């Protein structure tokens, strides 16, 4: 049976994806994600092995204990406000990358911006000269 260390769980998709018996259920609304671990007797330990946060351990089956559920508020994108990630996941990214890569050439902390806006920002930057040149022509 699974035991969850709430301080280490990132709220990612790994354990719910790898569990061969659908014992781990993920639910997502507009601004929250919750993960629910059902009591399982399989003891296959795939979820333990593939948890990036090392938050899961296997403990002996106990019919009295509650099935753990964790709920995360989804962080809002700094540019468009769309909810796109859990905070522990973003902090984990910050911890994995050297400091100089966490701000882009304009000083934007891109980790706190959603992927859609990241593409927009990159596209606008790349096309800036082109857009200026073309819009001047059409005045």
């Amino acid at each position, binding site marked *: 049976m699974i035991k969850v260390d709430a301080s280490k769980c990132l709220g990612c998709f790994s354990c719910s994806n790898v569990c061969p018996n659908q014992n781990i259920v993920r639910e997502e609304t507009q601004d929250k994600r919750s993960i629910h671990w059902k009591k399982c007797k399989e003891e296959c330990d795939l979820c333990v092995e593939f948890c990036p946060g090392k938050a899961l351990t296997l403990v002996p089956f106990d019919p009295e204990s509650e099935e753990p559920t964790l709920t995360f508020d989804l962080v809002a994108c700094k540019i468009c406000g769309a909810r796109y990630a859990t905070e522990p*996941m973003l902090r984990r990214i910050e911890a994995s990358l050297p400091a100089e890569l966490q701000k882009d050439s304009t000083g934007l902390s891109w980790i706190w911006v959603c992927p859609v806006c990241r593409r927009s920002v990159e596209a606008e930057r790349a096309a800036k000269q082109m857009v200026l040149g073309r819009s001047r022509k059409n005045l």
Partner: protein
Amino acid sequence: MPVYVDISRCIGCRSCEVACKRVHGGKGHVNVHMAGDHASVPIFCHHCEEATCTMACFSGALYKDGERTAFAVEKCTGCGLCRLACPFGVVWTDKLAHKCDLCQGRETPACVMTCPANALSTDFEAASKRARARAALMVAHGGRI
């Protein structure tokens, strides 16, 4: 090494998007962004030298293979960290992760071949030479007539 875009040639037809999706079983890795009314730019995986997606990947599914940022799907658990670790938003997760693999197994990437405007290329030398020649022409003609 990544696919280079000559933005002055992009006509916003989205053929690269449709082709990429088609050759990768319905999961495309290119997004054409319209910059207002005046330009369009396809955003590709840059195959970064310092690839942040490989740094965030805990299973080793994403790794550097020479200049290419490679992906071994059998090691992926679909955790979603790579999607958040890409500064350009070009790693997607859809159960498992997927991103541009420079069309391994094809002689020329599908997007490069299919681009009707001939805006994409894997040859950085040729692409920058052409851009320099065009800039020189602009200067020679005093910015046109």
